[in-house]
């Protein structure tokens, strides 16, 4: 390299875009998070530890993360089936179904919560027959789970859909002509090709469910230790003016969520280096 070309880039604008990126991310993401941590530091470590390990906090965290994980798993399976039907088959109303998938994106979460509650309440369309079977959905953790499934499904569908559309039909034909059964083709060829997209969809659905507030609180019943989600606990602490308590719970949520997303990202990276997009 000669000195004259040093520092030149074929793609100009790095300085400008990088500067804007850092500024923007700092204002929108990092600054509020820093505030969160600063507020938490008003507590001594012993206080912090006590708040975080209190029964109510632990239960709320368990409910939020545990149910979000379950909901994301269900969405992963059902979302994949929905995508398969939407992409692979032509049937009347396909476009309508495709549009319906986006409703949880667009619907105000409170509206969703009220609608789900009405549906699953003891006298509701689904609640009544379920009650006869002895299953109570509304105002229980099952209700929370259903709300989380509802708001999470479009994330899986919309992430996996374009990848499945782009999947070369020839690889399925190759698999079939090599003697693979349909089951083998799906499990050994198609699903592994979709793995990175499936993981992304799962991570997004999970993240959304962990942070979900609006739709859950209507259907949850919000009994401490039973059906109280962590975001609600934060709001309760805020309304009691116990700001540091609220931020302590928030910090724990933040750290756990970050660790989980980071882990999923690593798995995804691993899956992607084996399946590079070309």
């Amino acid at each position, binding site marked *: 390299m000669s000195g004259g070309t040093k520092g030149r880039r074929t793609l100009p604008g790095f300085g400008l875009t990088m500067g804007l990126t850092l500024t923007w991310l700092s204002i929108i993401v990092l600054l509020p998070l820093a505030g969160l941590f600063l507020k938490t530091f008003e507590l001594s470590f012993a206080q912090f530890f006590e708040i975080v390990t209190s029964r109510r906090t632990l239960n709320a965290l368990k409910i939020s993360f545990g149910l979000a994980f379950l909901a994301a798993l269900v969405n992963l399976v059902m979302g994949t089936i929905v995508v398969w039907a939407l992409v692979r088959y032509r049937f009347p109303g396909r476009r309508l179904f495709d549009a319906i998938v986006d409703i949880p994106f667009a619907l105000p979460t409170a509206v969703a919560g009220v609608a789900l509650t009405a549906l699953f309440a003891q006298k509701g369309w689904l609640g009544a027959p379920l009650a006869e079977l002895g299953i109570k959905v509304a105002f229980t953790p099952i209700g929370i789970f259903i709300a989380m499934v509802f708001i999470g499904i479009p994330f899986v569908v919309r992430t996996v859909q374009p990848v499945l559309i782009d999947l070369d039909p020839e690889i399925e*034909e190759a*698999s079939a*002509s090599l003697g693979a059964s349909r089951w083998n083709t799906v499990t050994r060829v198609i699903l592994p090709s979709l793995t990175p997209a499936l993981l992304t969809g799962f991570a997004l659905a999970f993240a959304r469910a962990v942070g979900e507030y609006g739709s859950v609180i209507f259907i949850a019943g919000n009994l401490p230790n039973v059906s109280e989600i962590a975001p609600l606990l934060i709001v309760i602490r805020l309304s009691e003016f116990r700001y540091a308590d609220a931020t302590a719970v928030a910090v724990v949520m933040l750290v756990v969520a970050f660790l989980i997303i980071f882990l999923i990202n690593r798995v995804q990276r691993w899956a992607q280096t084996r399946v590079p997009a070309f």
Partner: protein
Amino acid sequence: MTIEVRNIVKKFGSFTALDGVDLKVGKGELLALLGPSGSGKTTLLRIIAGLDWPDGGEVRFDGENALARGAGERHVGFVFQHYALFRHMNVFENVAFGLRVQPRAVRLNEDAIKKRVNELLDLVQLAWLSDRYPSQLSGGQRQRIALARALAIEPRILLLDEPFGALDAKVRKELRRWLRALHDEIHVTSIFVTHDQEEALEVANRVVVMDKGRIEQIGTPGEVYDNPATAFVHGFIGESIVLPVDVRDGRVELGGKALNLESQGAGAGPSRLFVRRHDMQVGPVGSGVIEGAVRRVRAFGPIQRADVALPGGDGETLIEIDTPRDRELNPGDLVGLQPRRYRIFSAST
């Protein structure tokens, strides 16, 4: 294994891809399906493989009805133009795939699979790439792995759909020589589809020329080149000079002027005269039955190429001829042209 295709018809909507195709392929043959795009050659190959189903007709392998079996039960190795390798599997696993998905009762054990895959990788000379992923290979390497994968199931028939179509010219040439040699070694009945006449003529034992869903001619490379059965084959294979002529009372006329040429039994009416470029002898005026005026001359290598205008029915016809450099040609010169060999086909065929 022999393949017999009888009266196959395949329609996509209103488009007829195959219009009554009959074909017999002998044991151990290496057959080329040659034709322009849209001629139905790939559709025919896919029907033989079981990847498409015909609307009518029969496919028989050794006399046995192949249409009663799905693609996976036909023991056919299929090689795709764009390789269709499994991206999430390394080279070894790609080749092993067909062995691993066998029903448990007939599946080889792990050691036998390993041995077989390694043999195949040696056969395609890529054993050293066994741990790589498809995205890390060149196009030519990918296609050889795809071939090894297809051979792993010990196919009774090998079908290749434009196997070298996505590769650059140099690699194509190498690979087709290699495919020829490989076929000489393993002798499995093979059909490959191509739109490249050079590839078909160089690699295949027999060439099937297709156009518009029909077979125009079946023959050895020499036969289809030297004795084209139809105007289409003459025009499609090799370079031809084509002149619009009229056949009247057994005489051949060009631009209203009778030529001293045999009509070769072509029916009366507008016809086309086909001459291979190297069969057109160029000399001074009077040395040939056709007379023309030189318009433009380009010289390169040992030959010079000239555009020659001939009087035609409507205005004039411009043809391109080759002559050795030792004969000087200039624009404006009048030349005599004598076809050494030629074919006349009625315009309707």
